[in-house]
């Protein structure tokens, strides 16, 4: 049998490694429970046969929803083995979003992690008649659910066992029928505008791209990864499905979303992917903890971090490091960096990645300075994830690296990044207009504005449609400024406004953890997020941070006029449940401009405060109103 589809690779791995090598682990009851390749195959096989017994046919879609659990991966693989198509869903998505995706993809079978997800699916079943069967993994709380279309994961496997008796070769025959050009995944992208689009990727798309990455980065079958990012996100499908099967390494599912960092420390992964938000959270946590540490530890941390940052700067420029710094760095390795890496669970990291949004250069440098091989990569769902990377010897702060060998990349006349690669998708599911817009002459139009530097590295500036100009014609790249703001440990999210205006303004979300900690140390009392955000002391704190950003903007001639003149602090966090940011935490600017129109008008008036009333949506769909007075502050600009 060839090995050009994921199911064929699964069988191959089971033959090769059998019970001797672990494919996937899950922490349950406080212990890491392991599944060998043979276990993976058997679980998948039984579930697939159970699905077959229940009438699953080639081309049927199966959705999974829940945290990363081996059973959900088995279910996706089982669908693939039968020639079906997995459609993973975001587990924290609200009903309206789920309804669209399930109805649009016509998923017949849904595998839900637990009661919470089953409840959502039951609510949707009334509206979407295509849902035939809901299968749940965790039986907790399910005792009173007697609906005939509900089955437990093990019950389906039991059906599979029976089915195998009458159809002993069914599974293998179905796997053999698989073709590399078959659809392997429909990944819905949480677009910043309009409804999500279903990106159709074939086995060949996924596997070719994975093999390009493997060649460039030299992954091995004894590597360890963590499966903790949403299953609906393309990166997880690449690492926890395609790459897992192609390379045969081990993937690890944490116990719960809240225990990821602790579980990571127990596993010591060698390849890890974190979106910028997580790197920034880790750094913020380190800083908060250091502020509470004994003074001698603080002094040591500050001193050696300064050394490390200097060394990192030399290395990034590929210049020799002076002897004195080299000696101090070696000392720091023992005293600070190694213990810190160990504490973060990153002692064994060979490759660490960030992508999805720009990472603050200082954050990036911090992790490289303590000896973690962190690199920025770039990719889209439409390109089967990663398509540019930074070779180990060519890591640069501001770029996302160069195209993987085998991938073509160019910049269009209007500054948009275009990509041609074997990983580029087959089209948007049931949406030929959008496909035609994105794919022209074999080139994928990414919608990102970028430039290529003298070393052939790609630099992403912003979304092409977001880059605009101020009234006086200065370039205004909002995300670029927001990223600078967000590097402050006290600022969690920021929205800058300026298109067609005289000057730039900002709406800021404080970081509850670090500002709260700061307030406690300064003896500033507060009751809630809203209350804390409007304290005069907090405004003074944030003003200083905005001033720093202005100072750094002033250094670049082109951006000097785009400094922030006025800002306010928002009374609530921007939240995907309120549709202000996407599930992957990208700002939905159009919506925000509409929702906060009054605030934006006030920012461009003489007012010093503005009253606001907002509706917030809880996770279960209930709504409530928050009313607050928001202060507006002027900031010094530099020339």
């Amino acid at each position, binding site marked *: 049998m060839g090995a050009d589809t994921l199911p064929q690779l699964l069988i191959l791995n089971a033959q090769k490694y059998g019970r001797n090598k672990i494919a996937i682990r899950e922490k349950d*009851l*406080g212990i890491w429970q392991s599944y060998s390749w043979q276990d993976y195959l058997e679980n998948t096989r039984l579930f697939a046969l159970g699905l077959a017994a229940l009438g699953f046919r080639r081309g049927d879609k199966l959705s999974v929803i829940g945290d990363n659990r081996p059973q959900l991966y088995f279910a996706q693989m089982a669908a693939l083995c039968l020639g079906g198509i997995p459609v993973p869903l975001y587990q924290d998505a609200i009903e309206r979003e789920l309804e669209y995706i399930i109805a649009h993809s016509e998923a017949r079978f849904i595998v839900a992690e637990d009661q919470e997800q089953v409840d959502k699916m039951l609510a949707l079943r009334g509206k979407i008649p295509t849902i035939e069967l809901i299968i749940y993994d965790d039986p907790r*709380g399910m005792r009173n659910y007697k609906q005939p279309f509900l089955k437990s994961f093990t019950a389906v496997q039991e059906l599979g066992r029976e089915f195998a008796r009458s159809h002993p070769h069914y599974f293998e025959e179905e796997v053999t029928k698989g073709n590399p050009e078959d659809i392997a995944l429909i990944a819905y992208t949480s677009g910043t505008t309009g409804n999500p689009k279903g990106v159709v990727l074939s086995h060949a798309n996924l596997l070719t791209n994975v093999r390009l990455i493997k060649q460039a980065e030299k992954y091995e079958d004894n590597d360890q990864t963590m499966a903790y990012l949403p299953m609906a996100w393309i990166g997880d499908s690449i690492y926890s499905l395609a790459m897992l099967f192609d390379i045969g390494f081990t993937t690890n599912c944490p116990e719960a979303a809240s225990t990821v960092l602790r579980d990571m420390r127990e596993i010591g992964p060698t390849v890890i992917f974190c979106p910028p938000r997580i790197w920034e959270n880790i750094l913020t946590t380190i800083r908060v903890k250091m502020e509470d540490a004994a003074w001698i530890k603080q002094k040591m941390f500050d001193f050696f971090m300064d050394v490390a940052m200097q060394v990192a700067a030399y290395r990034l420029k590929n210049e020799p490091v002076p002897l004195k710094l080299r000696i101090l760095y070696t000392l720091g390795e023992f005293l600070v960096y190694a213990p810190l890496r160990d504490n973060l669970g990153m002692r064994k990291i060979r490759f660490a990645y960030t992508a999805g949004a720009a990472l603050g250069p200082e954050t990036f440098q911090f992790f490289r300075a303590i000896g973690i091989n962190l690199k920025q990569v770039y990719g889209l769902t439409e390109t089967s994830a990663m398509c540019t990377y930074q070779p180990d010897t060519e890591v640069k702060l501001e770029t996302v690296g160069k195209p993987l060998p085998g991938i073509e990349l160019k910049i269009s006349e209007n500054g948009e990044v275009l990509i041609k690669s074997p990983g580029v998708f087959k089209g948007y599911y049931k949406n030929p207009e959008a496909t035609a817009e994105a794919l022209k002459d074999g080139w994928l139009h990414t919608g990102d504005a970028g430039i290529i530097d003298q070393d052939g590295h790609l630099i992403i500036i912003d979304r092409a449609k977001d880059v605009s100009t101020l009234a006086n014609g200065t370039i205004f790249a909002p995300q670029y400024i927001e990223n600078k703001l967000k590097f402050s440990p006290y600022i969690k999210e920021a929205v800058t406004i300026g298109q067609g205006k005289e000057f730039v303004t900002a709406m800021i979300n404080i970081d509850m953890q670090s500002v709260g900690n700061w307030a406690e140390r300064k003896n500033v009392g507060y009751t809630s997020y809203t209350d804390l955000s409007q304290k005069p002391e907090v405004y003074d704190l944030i003003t200083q941070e905005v001033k720093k950003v202005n100072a750094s903007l002033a250094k670049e001639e082109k951006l000097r006029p785009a400094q922030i003149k006025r800002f306010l602090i928002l009374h609530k966090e921007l939240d995907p449940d309120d549709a202000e940011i996407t599930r992957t935490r990208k700002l939905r600017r159009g919506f925000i401009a509409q929702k906060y129109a009054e605030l934006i008008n006030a920012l461009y008036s003489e007012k010093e405060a503005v009253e606001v009333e907002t509706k917030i949506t809880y996770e279960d769909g209930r709504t409530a109103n928050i009313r607050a007075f928001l202060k507006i502050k002027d900031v010094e600009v530099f020339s």
Partner: protein
Amino acid sequence: MNNNKKEVLLQVQDVHVDFGILKALNGVSLEIQKGEILAIIGPNGAGKTSLVNAINGFYHPSRGHIFFAGQDLTKLRPHQIAALGIARTFQNVALFKGMTVLDNLMVGRNLKMNSLFISQGIYWGLAQKEEIRHREAVERIIDWLEIEHIRKVPAGMLPYGLQKRVELGRALAAEPQLLLLDEPMAGMNLEEKEDIVRFILDANEELGVTIALIEHDMGVVMDISDRVIVLDYGEKIAEGTPQEIRYNERVIKAYLGSPARR
């Protein structure tokens, strides 16, 4: 809840508890049926906590008897009563603040540990096997109460709502037949209350634990209890389904103070 044949698990017969001239309980009689959720309500100082204290042996009745599964508890000490299968939580959280959540739950299983202290000293062999068995039971509770992330955190460092949840876990770790909950939701916000209610219902239905709870939140009481008993000035003034209690004149007068809400 779904028991038609009423099997009495605990019987309180004409119990009096007094502190000097103050009568905390003045001839209270009641029955707790196997598998039910019984709510005990009443104004402050009505004797609710005294009743729970009398059941689990903190107080000894000056008159009357308490039978649990046919056995007279009146003369027994609290740890003997606990060993019979009655666990409780306290109005004020009673955890070992310096110990981790995991250790607090392990303490909850203390009465189930059998190995002699000599074999515990040697550890390997019997004691180790036993430890593993208990740890597994505790891990199931941790999983069940969704407190994995605080497994190794000292109990005293947790927010109040979580401490209450851990205390519930500590009581459940003893695998009780009867669980006495003294205001498990006091001082909680809506979300925390909803969580605890779910755990109480699950404990009742999935683990088959009979539950008697003291609670002031009438919404919760009306929603989850099968029967309600009302105390006032150390006497039982009413008993019945939540519906019956809601419209009981005496209760409204003594306790709710105003016509039925909701």
